């Protein structure tokens, strides 16, 4: 029944050691920038004002570190690194709840990579013009159910025009290109790239419960578009899987960061004359959180391997990791508020940022119940 997934698994795919070292270097240089420019204090400042993200940080990571070309093949002008380089950056952004379109750009680039040759022109243009990206799948009423996509693509070959409304788009407030799922005249679902500066495109950005992640409504009225995926009908699913992967990776990293800050607090905060981290009830709860975080970490890592190797279990693994990692973040963040006591309830503190991020990660790209049902179906249960 679940024989497919019970089949012998290779002991975790390990990178060639040169690749592993390169990856470590990239992570270190990103961490250095983020620790200086994008810690939680900075997220706190950005999230309450306009434009809600940090253009300077964006510039630094793209122009100086070449983030947009990181995993774009060399023949398209990129650095040609493998999937784990991009996912490592998404994790570091996620751990700090960095607002804006950096993670959504890397996510869309990973998706485009996976779409094959048909997406190469887009990737080349992204690197050449340093374009940031977002992905737009949800629609009113339909949510992220691809079957119900109503946005229409008209045209043929190279030139398309899209009409429809996409909702709850993350990163659109800072992106230039949006990858949009739409249905052509024959009813076939595809992925199209739309320039947000084009005629017929209107982006309306909302304030959000999760203040670290603004969401936009994107109205398309005969907006010019290029088709990005191959006409095999799988492109939209590839895009959805990558959006879920982003939420999973961000959440696993955020869960760990949130647990860390909670544990540090418990070590120093005293009550009844001793550090509250010495109270066994709190210790046991933290231990359970640590186990959950380790599990989330493992499913996220497995997903990276899946994306890296192009394994056929992508949809299953992305759905499962999204579910496990976002639920874990919610558990950890909720406990973080409780374990911090009153201070964790203040706006000034960081705990609520993780808590709000957890809820948006749970509800975006399919609710837990929806995704769980998908996992069951994909696993053949």
């Amino acid at each position, binding site marked *: 029944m679940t024989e497919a997934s019970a089949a012998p698994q290779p002991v975790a795919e390990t990178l060639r050691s040169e690749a592993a070292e390169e990856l470590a270097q990239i992570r270190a240089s990103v961490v250095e920038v983020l620790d200086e420019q994008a810690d939680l204090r900075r997220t706190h400042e950005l999230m309450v004002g306009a434009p809600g993200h940090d253009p300077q940080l964006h510039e630094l990571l793209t122009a100086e570190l070449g983030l947009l070309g990181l995993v774009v093949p060399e023949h398209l002008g990129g650095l040609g690194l493998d999937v784990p380089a991009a996912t490592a950056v998404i994790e570091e952004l996620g751990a700090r709840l960095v607002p804006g379109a950096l993670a959504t750009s890397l996510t869309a680039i990973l998706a485009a990579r996976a779409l094959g040759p048909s997406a190469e022109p887009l990737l080349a243009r992204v690197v050449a013009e340093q374009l940031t990206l977002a992905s737009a799948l949800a629609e009113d009423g339909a949510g992220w159910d691809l079957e119900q996509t109503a946005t229409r693509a008209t045209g043929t070959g190279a030139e398309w025009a899209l009409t429809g409304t996409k909702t709850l788009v993350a990163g659109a407030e800072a992106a230039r290109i949006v990858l949009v799922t739409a249905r052509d005249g024959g009813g076939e679902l595809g992925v199209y790239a739309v320039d947000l500066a084009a005629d017929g495109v209107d982006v309306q950005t909302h304030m959000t419960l999760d*203040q670290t992640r603004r969401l936009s409504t994107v109205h398309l009225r005969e907006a010019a578009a290029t088709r990005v995926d191959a006409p095999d009908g799988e492109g939209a699913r590839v895009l959805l899987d990558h959006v879920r992967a982003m939420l999973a990776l961000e959440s696993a990293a955020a869960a760990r960061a949130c647990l860390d800050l909670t544990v540090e607090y418990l070590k120093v905060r005293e*009550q009844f004359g001793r550090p509250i981290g010495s109270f066994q009830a709190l210790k046991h709860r933290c231990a359970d959180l640590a186990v959950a975080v380790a599990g989330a970490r493992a499913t996220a890592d497995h997903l990276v391997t899946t994306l890296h190797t192009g394994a056929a279990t992508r949809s299953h693994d992305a759905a499962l990791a999204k579910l496990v990692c976002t639920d874990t973040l919610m558990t950890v963040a909720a406990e973080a*508020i409780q374990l911090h006591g*009153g201070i964790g*309830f203040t706006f000034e503190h960081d705990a609520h940022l993780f808590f709000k991020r957890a809820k948006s990660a749970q509800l975006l790209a399919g609710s837990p119940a929806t995704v769980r049902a998908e996992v069951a179906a994909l696993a053949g249960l």
Partner: protein
Amino acid sequence: MSDEQFRAEIRGWLHEALTGPFAEAVGTGGEGREHEAHELRREWERHLGRAGWIGLGWPSEYGGRPATMAQQVIYHEEYARAGAPGRLGHMSEQLLGPTLLAFGTPEQKARFLPGITSGEDIWCQGYSEPGAGSDLAGVRTRAERRGDSYVITGQKVWTSLAHLADWCFVLCRTDPDSTRHAGLSYLLVPMDQPGITVRPITQLTGTSEFNEVFFDGAVAAVEHRVGAEGEGWKVAMGTLGFERGVSTLGQQIGFRRRLDAVIARAHENGAWQEPALRDRLVEAYIGLEVMRHSAVRLLASAGGGLSGLEASISKLQWATWNRSLGELAVDVEGAGALLTGPEYELDDAQTHFLFSRANTIYGGSNEIQRNIIAERLLGLPR
């Protein structure tokens, strides 16, 4: 007066008041909405007081009104059912009033209770301190006696309504050499004086219900000390015990309204068709039934006042339940619940989701309640 007559009277009075001059106040000032409509709600307190609806069961000489326990429950039920405004006088009536009735001198009662029953005086509570949290015995705010006065220096936190209140009941350390429960005193301090600064705390909802209160040479009269010097712990614990059971049933009516609204919403938007959400909604319904039966049982056995132990069980139950319902309310809405107003204005589900995180922290956190239940109800060793 029969219970039915009593119910008809309060229901009629509320209906008239809330469709008339206070129509705008309906639904304001609830949990997570303490920042709303202060002026109107202050006027509402006076209106309530003039009509004799504050101090039910208190002696008439202090402006109270005779009422049986059952009638007090009815009052709270009807109050919640009508969606009447959140009470600015909650601390005054539910905490300070009973404390003064139990521990106050005749002069203190005569001086302060009428201001409460008239809805005129608003009180706030000065217990928690930064760095002490749920450990009330860790109070460090000092009160130094100088003649007929105490001079107070220190800081309190999580003081709701401090910016509106006329008075504050403050737990202070009057014996500088004392530690823990000894050497504390319970002082009544006027808020309108130079030595007091109030600073609002912005919560994760973006609004402010709570404040920090800084005492820097603030003065309280010695005659306004409740209980003997050094016996403040006993008086304060008495106050905590006075969080009386009669309001519990009224609170449940409010919970029921909220649950009904969430269930109605689930039917409306199709979330009810999702088995996992439906299961959580049914679970919430069952949890509320259990709390209702528990409250009825406790009140029947306790004659209307909850002991500290029963209050601990009840607090743990409702705080945890309401927090779960808050998350469920947002989950029922789905991803649409992620959008707020342009200035982070929150709707009911969002407010419930965020504010209910405080339920399990304030008024004795879940952890403190579990300690109390384990040690005092079950007798497990410290």
